[in-house]
């Protein structure tokens, strides 16, 4: 018997089932199809400015920094200012996200590099798929638009998110992902990111910048 068959046989022997029971199969298929929500905390069930304020509060509690701009056209200047204020070089790596492409980068002195990171970039910008106000979490999906390496290799990760894409809870983001990618189909990687990288492994003291970015800066586009 193959290892696979053996493991299945032992599970079924222990559970006292055959695996062919119509009722069980129906119950499991139904749950996978319906994906019931469970208990969603009241905290995130707010909208508009209140939701944005909650997102900000939670993201900042996780030690991210947040800035708001009125429209997409203001993003490049805002990022240039962030880099200057932190004495960081005016360089920026990004993928091929059309939302970022349309922004007026030429109005800044930023030196733009394209494509995934090979590990030597100081600054990168990604466009988030969405965010979750409940915990101040950014949601990013992989693809050449926003390569996953940009989320982890640079020292400073800047994430742009549209205010309308900030959901109250995780469940709302899953609905959008299903709508965008198809039911039970996922992009290679979905990253939930809540604050910058950190470690408490030395004497349980929290230190920022373990292996991933030392800074997570979020730009919310309100338009």
């Amino acid at each position: 018997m193959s290892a696979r068959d053996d493991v299945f046989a032992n599970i079924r022997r222990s559970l006292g089932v055959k695996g062919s029971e119509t009722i069980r199969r129906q119950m499991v298929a139904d749950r996978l199809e319906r994906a019931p929500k469970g208990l969603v905390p009241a905290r995130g069930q707010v909208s508009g400015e209140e939701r944005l304020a909650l997102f900000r509060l939670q993201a900042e509690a996780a030690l991210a920094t947040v800035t708001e701009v009125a429209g997409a056209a203001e993003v490049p200047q805002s990022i240039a200012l962030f880099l200057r204020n932190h004495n960081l070089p005016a360089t920026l790596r990004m993928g091929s996200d059309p939302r970022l492409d349309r922004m007026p980068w030429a109005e800044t002195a930023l030196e733009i590099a394209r494509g995934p990171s090979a590990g030597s970039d100081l600054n990168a910008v990604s466009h988030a798929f969405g965010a979750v106000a409940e915990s101040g979490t950014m949601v990013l999906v992989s693809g050449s638009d926003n390569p996953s390496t940009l989320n982890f290799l640079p020292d400073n990760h800047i994430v742009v998110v549209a205010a309308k894409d900030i959901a109250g809870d995780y469940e709302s983001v899953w609905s959008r992902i299903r709508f965008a990618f198809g039911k039970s189909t996922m992009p290679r990687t979905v990253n939930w990111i809540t604050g910058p990288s950190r470690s408490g492994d030395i004497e349980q003291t929290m230190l920022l910048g373990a292996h991933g970015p030392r800074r997570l800066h979020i730009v919310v586009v309100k338009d």
Partner: protein
Amino acid sequence: MTVHTTSPQFKTNAARALADTQLQKALGNVKQGFIDKRRAAAEKLPEFEALRDSARDIKNHTLQHLDLYLEAYEGKVKASGGHVHFARTAEEARGIILGICREAGARTVTKGKSMIAEEIGINHHLEANGIVPVETDLGEYIIQLRNEMPSHIIAPAVHLNATQVEQDFRRVHTHLDAKRDLSEPVQLLTEARAVLRERFLAADVGITGANFLVAETGTSIIVTNEGNGDLTQILPKTHIVLTSIEKLVPTLEDVSQILRVLARSATGQEMSVYTTFSTGPRRAADSDGPENYHVVLLDNGRSSMLGTSFEEMLRCIRCGACMNHCPVYHAVGGHAYGWVYPGPMGAVLTPSLIGIDKAGHLPNASTFCGRCESVCPVRIPLPKLMRHWREREFERHLTPATIRSGLKTWGFLARRPALYRVATRAAMGVLGLAGRAKGRFAWLPLAKGWTKYRDFPAPQGETFQARWRRERHRRSA
């Protein structure tokens, strides 16, 4: 058998741990930090207790239909271009992983934190076959340099102090300036980041564990704060997920329920920094990510726990709250438990995986104070399960003769209430009188095991039953 165990020597291990001043200093960090942070996070979320129920119910439901959810999961992984390998034993899992690494022509392998990797002893096996495994979680990296096992499931180097880490870095990182300043923890972190960055970029294969597997989508999930698990999986050409069969949950909604209690219970965070959902290899249009995606699903005794009272242990989501709140863990640390999983969850799981004959001391290393159960996010009745192991140990005549005869004497008295009252009244009276001056005993006959490390408080001359009767009488009067 998997990795070497010193669980049979628990008593010797514990005695050594109690005398280890470095360890005792480091263990102070557990007592201080984790408990307060968890409590604050739990109090901040009004639905926290209800979410614990929800998490428990989801895991119970999945375990009841584990065969069907595994089938669905396997189908989805394959549909997304990945491979699923089943391993009955640690040895089979090691063989599968070595095979994948060889096929990839691997010379170095980076590793995210994985308790299953510890359980099967994969590092040693890769090394023995000419492949260099590099732990990338800071705590795991430190203990790899020291050739040690993790002493905690989420804080593997919690038994160490910064000065010890500094010594290890100076010993191993000999390519760096010997006069460099490493007096601050942040300098140690920065050095490890730089050293490991090179390793990440050079690795041929990345091995991570999985906190959860989602049947709906064929997704594996890791939860980290450092980002090492992500660099481990997106940079090399091959990503291996090394995990076990009980990590399944039905849907993305289900795992979102459990994630709401995981970080809060573990570190007191609302959410860990990186929660990563990985499905198959990189897509055709992707510009980064692994080209090959393998999942190795370990059984190693778990399927036999289903349908028994120990099935409840399979709900465990490895948050570490039980050990963070355990007075025994606080006193002796994780290494004393002698195998991979320490603390209360280890005391229940280890006998299932390596046998009660080897791990019998562990379920006995408990005061039954119940704190572990009171904080467990999936409500595993850990004290009850430890008691089940004690019963089995007794039934199989593995309990030492002195304890057996003691228990028999107690059993004889307990079945004869009148005699029990007389005997306890006499004993409490004598002890109360003898201990009246100091209020405690530094030495007692037949209780050396207790009084060697702490004093025994003197009874106040009255038995519990007598006091119970008196108080009840007073209240009803």
